[in-house]
């Protein structure tokens, strides 16, 4: 039994060592190290927000929603463009309404006809939805770069100047993003644990047929789940959009969120957060500290470790612990 | 077990055939298997002689399918050994078991739904087809000859099972009884020394059962294949088998000829007097 945990333990140990190395070898000033760490955590929060949507949908319907990134983009676009005409709070509400409508349409047109197919078919169907939504969003809202003004200054702030030489630079909107993420997760936790709908969702996630047999309407549940994921998409879209500007590269973010759910487990909400943080920190650390080492060692044309680090890490996790850190063990029955 | 059921096969009764039952080719020795806390098999031991038909019977959940799974390497027992052709097998995988000459059918029909009948049975010849990738890509020459040679063998099996008309039909479209025949055909294509049949008659009507019994007997007679089968239908068991093993809650409670087993009080108790 203990044998099973050995490879994961080794992997985590290697990662921890890698994390501590720059500090231990004094390759960088502690203040800078903390900055990079915080930067990674903030990026991780953004990934987690997208991954949350994945996990919600997968938990309740077993569908892997490749289109989550496109949904985040679509939500962001909708809010950004509507906010040009009406105050932000109204735009947000309208954005949520649009995402709910989208949830209904997707459930009716895509999910219901494919209800009994295997995971890969559904994955490809959501891939199709993703492409469609990409094109549709840009057709309706346009493909320029739009911005979402959350009223926070973008200027970085210096903190802990007396503890560390030079202090640590952090961005206010990053902090806001982290706060939002925490609030969202808390809200979702309350929703799932305390409300009747939340309980129904958990029942469906556990066992579709059993849930149906006690009268839970599967189709309506899926609409609810996709709507909640849509709300998460709106939040994620706004946070991303405020930070980066709303541009279509956001949908590529969806791909980055895949390693997050691999690490965290497809069915775990805390896993999505922790996985996101690990990926965010790992990427940044690898780019800033490992990158120059590799460039020197192999005479590379620049860094770019960020492009593949998350996926390779996910691959390693897949080989030692496919269910992720917090997911459920997948048992192959004959 | 009250009235003598009418024999399924209107032939000479068992024991009066031309076959000679040979030496032990499979011996199960003290096999124990558990999943987590559940004990599927406890210290089960029996042997199977060459050319015989051995039935494994028992109430539901007795561990019969698990026993077959152990024999062909799907499950690995925690204790005990399985000896095939004298060689002990520890942790042998299913495809190694296949290479050693053990074939099996599944209760839930593990046919390849994406292929037709001919291709399904041809997969049974895979172990014996040796043409390299390049040869197969070119096809002309040695690969073609090998393919035709094995096609001929498979066609004989198709004739034997009387499914010629369905050669090119995707197996998913066939009725259940015919699918079972394809399953059997695929196992036969492996030319196995030992054939494991997991409830070959399940879900069949009387006619289909008679056909399947006939096929099983013919396989045993013509090819001399040793057969181990799990079956619930007592009439079939009594007619077909040379010897019977009875399992209940993972333990062996009976082992002998059909008559011996039928009169064994422990067996009768286990079945609570259910007869077919």
């Amino acid at each position, binding site marked *: 039994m203990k044998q099973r945990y050995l490879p994961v333990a080794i992997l985590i140990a290697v990662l921890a060592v890698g994390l501590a190395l720059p500090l231990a070898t004094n390759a960088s000033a502690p203040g800078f190290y903390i900055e990079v760490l915080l930067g990674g955590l903030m990026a991780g929060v953004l990934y987690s927000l997208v991954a949350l949507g994945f996990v919600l949908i997968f938990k309740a319907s077993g569908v892997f929603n490749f289109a989550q990134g496109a949904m985040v983009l679509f939500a962001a676009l909708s809010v950004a463009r509507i906010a040009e005409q009406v105050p932000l709070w109204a735009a947000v509400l309208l954005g949520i309404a649009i995402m709910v409508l989208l949830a209904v349409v997707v459930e009716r047109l895509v999910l219901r006809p494919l209800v009994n197919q295997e995971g890969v078919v559904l994955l490809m169907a959501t891939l199709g939805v993703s492409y469609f939504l990409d094109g549709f969003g840009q057709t309706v809202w346009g493909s320029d770069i739009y911005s979402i003004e959350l009223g926070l200054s973008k200027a970085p702030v210096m903190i802990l100047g007396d503890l560390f030489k030079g202090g640590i630079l952090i961005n206010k909107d990053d902090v806001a993003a982290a706060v939002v993420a925490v609030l969202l997760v808390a809200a979702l936790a309350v929703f799932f644990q305390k409300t009747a709908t939340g309980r129904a969702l958990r029942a469906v996630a556990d066992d579709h047929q059993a849930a149906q047999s006690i009268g839970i309407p599967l189709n309506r549940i899926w609409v609810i789940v996709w709507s909640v994921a849509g709300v998460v998409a709106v939040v994620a879209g706004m946070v991303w959009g405020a930070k980066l500007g709303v541009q279509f590269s956001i949908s590529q973010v969806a791909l980055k969120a895949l390693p997050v759910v691999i690490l965290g487990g497809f069915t775990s909400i805390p896993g999505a957060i922790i996985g996101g943080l690990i990926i965010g920190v790992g990427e940044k650390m690898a780019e800033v500290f490992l990158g120059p080492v590799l460039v020197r060692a192999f005479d590379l044309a620049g860094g770019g470790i960020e492009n593949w680090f998350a996926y390779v890490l996910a691959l390693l996790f897949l080989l030692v612990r496919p269910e992720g850190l917090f997911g459920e063990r997948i048992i192959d029955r004959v | 077990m009250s009235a003598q059921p009418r024999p399924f096969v209107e032939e000479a009764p068992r024991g009066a055939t031309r076959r000679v039952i040979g030496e032990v080719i499979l011996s199960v020795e003290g096999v124990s298997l558990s999943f987590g806390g559940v004990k599927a098999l406890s210290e089960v031991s029996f042997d199977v002689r060459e050319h015989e038909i051995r039935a494994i019977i028992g109430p539901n959940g007795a561990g019969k399918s698990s026993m077959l799974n152990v024999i062909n390497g799907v499950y690995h027992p925690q204790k005990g050994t399985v000896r095939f052709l004298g060689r002990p097998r520890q942790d042998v995988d299913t495809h190694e078991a296949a290479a050693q000459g053990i074939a099996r059918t599944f209760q839930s029909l593990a*046919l390849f739904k994406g292929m037709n009948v001919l291709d399904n049975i041809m997969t049974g010849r895979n172990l014996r087809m040796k043409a390299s990738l390049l040869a197969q890509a070119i096809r002309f020459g040695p690969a073609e000859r090998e393919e035709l040679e094995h096609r001929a063998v498979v066609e004989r099996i198709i004739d034997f099972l009387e499914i010629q008309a369905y050669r090119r039909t995707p197996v998913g479209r066939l009725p259940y009884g015919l699918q079972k025949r394809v399953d059997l055909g695929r196992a036969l294509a492996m030319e196995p020394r030992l054939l494991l049949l997991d409830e070959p008659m399940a879900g069949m009507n009387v006619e289909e059962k008679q056909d399947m019994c006939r096929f099983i007997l013919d396989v045993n007679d013509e090819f001399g294949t040793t057969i181990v089968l799990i079956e619930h239908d007592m009439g079939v068991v009594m007619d077909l088998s040379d010897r019977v093993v009875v399992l209940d809650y993972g333990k062996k409670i009976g082992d002998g000829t059909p008559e011996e087993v039928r009169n064994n009080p422990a067996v009768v108790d286990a079945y609570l007097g259910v007869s077919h």
Partner: protein
Amino acid sequence: MLYRENGQFKTSYRQDEALLPILQDRVFIWALLALAFLAVPFLASNYLFLSILNPFLIMALAAVGLNLLVGYCGQISIGHAAFMAVGAYAAYNLMLRVPNLSFLVALVLAGLIAAAVGMLFGIPSLRIKGLYLAVATLAAQFFIDWTFARVKWFTNYAPSGSVSTPVLDIFGWRLDTPARKYVFLLAVVTVFTVLARNLVRGHIGRAWMAIRDMDVAAEVIGIRPVYAKLTAFAVSSFYVGIAGALWGFVYLGSWEPLAFNITLSLNLLFMIIIGGMGSITGSFFGALFIVALPIVLDQVPATLGVPLSTAMASHLASMIFGALIVFFLIVEPHGLARLWAIGKEKLRLWPFPH
């Protein structure tokens, strides 16, 4: 009346196992090949070669490769364009560094190198499947992308990271016109398609399909999953590597590091979903569709008097792709190839209703 097997008796297994057992199919294919080889080079315009025919042929080859892995063997890969990159860069480096190397030899060697890399990245398939394997293949895509962009040796230390290739010379025949390139591509693709068709009909093809349909049962038959899956990855990557080399040398002429990115991988996947998974013919349909649709969207609205900006056209293409993927997955998971087969079935009966 036209398309009947009536009267075509097979008197040997050899006849039944022919590549094209039905006479009408044989006639059709030979006629098509004759048209393709003898008529098209002289009749088609340069524009047709450059924008549709040549890319279609290369993409069809790549789609066949991907189909072998995904459609026949059931192993998902959403990073397959990376192996096209391997083939392209391998061919480039071979032609660059080995003096007097014939392009055909370089092509096959590049394919073999891509096959080896493909096998390496196929190892995860031995332990994971489905969506998990899909994520693992993404690792291949992004890592290989990065390798070719950053490791300067591969691009011969070019400052921009782009490489360019000379005009090809096949046994003295210079491929300097689109028509000549077309004929070369057609020849290569025809040969490789026949090889693929043979593989799929052989015992390795059946082993792949067995693994796809029910890998547990396949093992019980004696099929070794490791061998089947790794050969699927290897052969698939071989095809895709050759397609990559052809794409770079014959079609593009020069390419930059991200020419073989995730978008291309997803396009390949779309080709086989729309065209038909598990069907060689389907790969051709899918490739033609994906290659032709943007052109159609570009040209047709203009000729109809409805102007469409290029950005708009590409958005529309995205929407149509997405909608069609969902449509085909729901209505006809076996894609256009199945619709074609159904059409032929109906043709057999025509003019009778049943």
